[in-house]
């Protein structure tokens, strides 16, 4: 059974291929006669990686199983009293199971398409070998993360995708804003990473002794497979586990840009649009969601954790959508949308439906990458990201306009496009849990309201960019479609954005989402209530699109009157609720002021004391110098005094000290 399952042992080839691509392009790319050739090398390698990735995921669909391979003792740690009485080995290896196959499919397919698209999109740029090398390294780290078989290995690759993201956000490093955004992204996610690491320690020390079948005790952080997590979602107790779950959520919030660590993602749009599509929409930012899913499947969250996760996810879904409503920058609108959609996924996992969250992760990866690449196509053509300068582009860019529209419909949740199925499942899933805790209600309602905003903001962007007679800024260049390398990914991703939601009806695919457990849960049980809910959400989405058309359609530009009571709200949204200012104030002003003060103390108080001793010794030695008077009777007096002192020390003080100390 499962002719393709033999491949599972070779899953390590995927990251290895991309490491090879990184090495070749990085070392030799600059010496090639034409710099694009390095790009074609990367395309070839990511194509090969995609073939392996797709075959593995098909294999998992045909016969779900979990397969661990390539065990290598990365660190052999000695015993420590207390938690780790026997010492332990940290083993690295690859784990192929249904959910990692799902992610592998997403990462390799989108990765390949983005590589291909880059050939056209990036051809003007200097530093091409650096670009393709870093993107290859990113894909290596991301596939490594997906295939990690234990939390520590997961963390290692988690950090590596983070640093690749850092370099790619700062790809145009001559621009101060890009360099600053890269730093911001690294530091904000670092806050989450620190929490994640502590969470790992907590889980590890909890399970090191209590794990099933000695799996944890012997192998440290290995994900042990079983039908049930150690603590089934929402049922566990224990303060340590609750704290551990919250810390893991902190890590996920950093990576997936959830409130309050969301600030970096919009600024990360300083990177090339291809990078935004791959890293900041489809894959890396979804790693946080994947982490939550993996944790809920293998480790389990307590009831308190679930509530906090629902709160963060539900609030972020709405909160980020509000900022997308007013933004003039096409990429940032999509970036806020990404934060919001990740919030939906987090919400689903918090409600106990990891499979639904992963389902949305899957569909979202395709339609969001599509939206970014379509936006990239527009930016490539007109050279601006400001929606208010664009307009009327659908005449000259039919393919791009259609692709963006398909992506928009999928995002808005209009049937039968991909987003409808998964977003609807999330709402139904959370709805089904409303009875478990009354506190779920507000977050469900926020998520529901977010549906309207989502449809509105994405079609506002579409109408602003594509509808109307002509561009609002006449100085923009004549728009044109990109070369075929850019068009092919748009077409392929459009196809996915239409059909990806229907994948659940394929036999075997739900198994990927459910990690092989044969539970009938996808789509959740549909009764009359769920159908009504579904109808309501589609109605809301349609209303959002309608409002967008009313305000922005046919080249209209809606201007909020100065006297409108909504003006302060609008300004607050444009200012992104002042989060960035607040963080800058803490990071740049407060911490830096403390650092300056500490530096002052270091130089003038601590080192000043040292100088004080220096001067004191100089003064004392100057006095002592005068004792050497050259008069013999003086010296004789010193000798007698010295002898007396020695006698006192030896006869009285020393025995007393020895007696007190009890020494021999």
């Amino acid at each position: 059974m499962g002719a393709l399952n033999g491949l599972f042992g070779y899953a390590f080839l995927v990251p290895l291929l991309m490491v090879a691509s990184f090495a070749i392009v990085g070392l030799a790319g600059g010496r090639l006669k034409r710099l694009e050739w390095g790009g074609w090398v990367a395309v070839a390698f990511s194509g090969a990686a995609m073939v392996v990735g797709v075959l593995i995921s098909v294999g998992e669909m045909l016969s779900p199983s979990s397969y661990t391979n390539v065990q290598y003792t990365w660190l052999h740690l000695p015993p420590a009293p207390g938690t780790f009485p026997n010492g332990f080995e940290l083993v690295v290896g690859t784990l192929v199971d249904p959910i990692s196959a799902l992610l592998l499919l997403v990462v390799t397919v989108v990765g390949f398409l983005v590589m291909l698209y880059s050939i056209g999109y990036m051809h003007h740029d200097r530093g091409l070998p650096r670009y393709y090398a870093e993107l290859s390294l990113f894909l290596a780290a991301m596939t490594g993360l997906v295939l990690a078989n234990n939390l520590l290995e997961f963390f290692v690759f988690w950090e590596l995708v983070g640093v690749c993201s850092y370099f790619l956000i700062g790809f145009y490093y001559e621009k101060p804003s890009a360099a600053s955004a890269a730093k911001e992204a690294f530091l904000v996610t670092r806050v989450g990473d620190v929490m994640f690491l502590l969470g790992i320690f907590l889980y590890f020390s909890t399970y090191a002794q209590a794990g099933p079948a000695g799996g944890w005790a012997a192998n440290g952080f290995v994900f042990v497979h079983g039908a049930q997590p150690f603590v089934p979602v929402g049922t566990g107790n224990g303060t340590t586990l609750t704290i551990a779950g919250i810390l893991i959520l902190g890590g996920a919030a950093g990576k997936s840009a959830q409130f309050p660590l969301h600030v970096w993602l919009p600024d990360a749009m300083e990177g090339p649009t291809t990078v935004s599509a791959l890293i900041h929409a489809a894959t890396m930012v979804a790693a946080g969601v994947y982490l939550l899913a993996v944790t809920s499947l293998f480790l389990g969250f307590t009831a308190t954790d679930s509530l906090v996760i629902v709160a963060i996810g539900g609030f972020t879904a709405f909160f980020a959508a509000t900022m997308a409503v007013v933004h003039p920058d096409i990429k940032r609108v999509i970036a806020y949308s990404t934060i919001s959609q990740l919030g939906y996924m987090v919400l689903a996992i918090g409600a106990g439906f990891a499979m639904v969250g992963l389902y949305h992760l899957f569909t979202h990866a395709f339609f969001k990458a599509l939206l970014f690449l379509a936006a990239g196509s527009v930016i490539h053509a007109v050279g601006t990201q400001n929606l208010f300068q664009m307009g009327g582009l659908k005449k000259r860019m039919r393919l791009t306009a259609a692709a963006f529209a398909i992506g928009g419909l999928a995002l808005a949740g209009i049937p039968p496009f991909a987003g409808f199925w998964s977003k609807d499942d999330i709402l139904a899933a959370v709805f089904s849990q409303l009875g478990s805790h009354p506190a779920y209600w507000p977050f469900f309602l926020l998520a529901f309201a977010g549906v309207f905003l989502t449809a509105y903001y994405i079609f506002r962007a579409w109408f602003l960019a594509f509808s109307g007679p002509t561009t609002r800024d006449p100085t923009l260049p004549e728009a044109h479609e990109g070369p075929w390398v850019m068009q092919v990914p748009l077409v392929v991703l459009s196809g996915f954005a239409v059909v990806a939601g229907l994948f659940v009806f394929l036999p075997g695919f739900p198994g990927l989402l459910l990690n092989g457990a044969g539970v009938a849960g996808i789509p959740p049980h549909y009764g009359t209530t769920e159908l009504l809910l579904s109808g309501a959400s589609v109605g809301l989405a349609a209303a959002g699109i309608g409002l967008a058309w009313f305000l922005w359609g046919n080249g209209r530009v809606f201007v909020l009157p100065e006297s409108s009571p909504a003006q302060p709200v609008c300004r607050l949204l444009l200012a992104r609720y002042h989060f960035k200012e607040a963080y800058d104030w803490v990071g740049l002003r407060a911490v830096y002021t403390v650092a300056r003060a500490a530096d002052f103390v270091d130089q003038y108080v601590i080192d000043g004391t040292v100088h004080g001793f220096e001067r004191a010794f100089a003064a004392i030695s100057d006095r002592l110098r005068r004792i050497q008077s050259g008069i013999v009777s003086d010296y004789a007096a010193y000798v007698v005094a010295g002898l007396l002192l020695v006698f006192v020390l030896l006869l009285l003080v020393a025995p007393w000290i020895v007696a007190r100390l009890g020494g021999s």
Partner: protein
Amino acid sequence: MLPILSLVLVTLLVGTVATFLAGARARWVALGVSAVFLAEVGTLFAQYPGWPGYVNGVPGFADGQSVPWIHLGWLQVNYTVGVDGISLIFILLTAILQVATVVYSWGEERRPAAYFGLVLLTCLGCFGVFVALDILLFFLFWEAVLVPMFFLIGYWGGPRRRYAALKFFVYTHVASIVMLVGLLALAFYSGAASFDFSAVYAAAPTLSPVVQAFLFLSLFFGFGVKFPIVPFHTWLPDAHVEAPTGGSVLLAGLLLKLGGYGLIRWAVEVLPEGLAHVRPILFFVAFLSIGWGSVVSLAQRDLKRMVAFSSINHMGIVLLAIALGSSLGLLAAVLLMFAHGIVSGLLFMTAGSVHHTFGSRDIPAIGGITPTTPALSTMIMVGSLASLGLPALIGFPAEFTALLATWNGLGYWVMIPLGILVVTASFYLWMMQRMLFGPARGVPAEAHDVPWYEGAGMGLLVALTVLFGVLPGLLVNVIVSSPIKGFPGT
């Protein structure tokens, strides 16, 4: 069987003398000596699979050799050397940094014979400290290190070199005296049969806990100033800023490690009960150093000074790991020191190259150097990322182990070093943002990328940073499976 440790000492001694006399060819002689040194260390590692079989002469140590030296009644001083897994790692570090420093300093024009001779002499002293198993021999090498470093700073250093050299010498010398008194008191009070480590180790448990605690504190002060611990650290930034690049590399890479090694070997292993009594003091000092080093780094304008303060932060984590008193903590401390030796060596080299290339190390005054000096810029990135603990680089396995050991030993106190990791990341990233990225600023028109020898010296360290970051087991297995005295249960 060859007494290989003594052979190394002879090699380095003869090599140093030869280098001093070699005149213009000194760099070649120094390189040759370094190559022989590296080969000898390689031989040591090659014996490693048969580890227990090589324990001879000195119990618990490999390649041991003990020869009577000064025997006057109760004064029993021996020439005793030997290695265990811990000292082996430090010996490897010494050999690596010696080669890297010699290669990096290839272009030294001012009295090269004296310069390379002093570099070799410093490494000789450090090697001696790492293998000496007799109090007097240990102290001899310990003090021998100060002299060449004093001259390296005082002659080849920056504008305030005299002040810095004197401060370095007096400050650490005072600490050495305290340490010597502590060691001698330890030997005499415990009634050890000789000054040998094994004799002192065997006799120390007879001391009362209070005496052990006081002795431990005096040793801690002596070794701690070398770490350096806050508030006895102010000699370090001055010495680093004024030292020539090679001097800085050895200072940060090896001299700071003497403190850590000494504390493990002569205090923690010999006086575990003393440690148990004063542990809270060590924890307090460690947390203070971790926080202080990192926060003050953030305020620095001089690249070298920033790296110097980051050393205080990293050595604070080392102290924390040592103070935990678990074998996991000891492993972490040794790994951290090795990692810090490689990475801070690399960072000080980059700081030196920045100074040569741009005529300044002032971070706000230089900007956007990446297009001009891509290789140097890459080295700075690797060094910074390794220092802030990025996985796949050498700092991560060490820091991870240290934090895990801290969590195991101290529970939620681990949040202090964990939280400081964010500050550490921020000062490195901010430096990179200002110096490497953005529009070019303060870049002379004639500036070009680093010369080959500087690139080779840094490249060696970069390669090792990646190698040991990906495969930390290469080091850990050596440490863990050797007969280490301090490791409970082994």
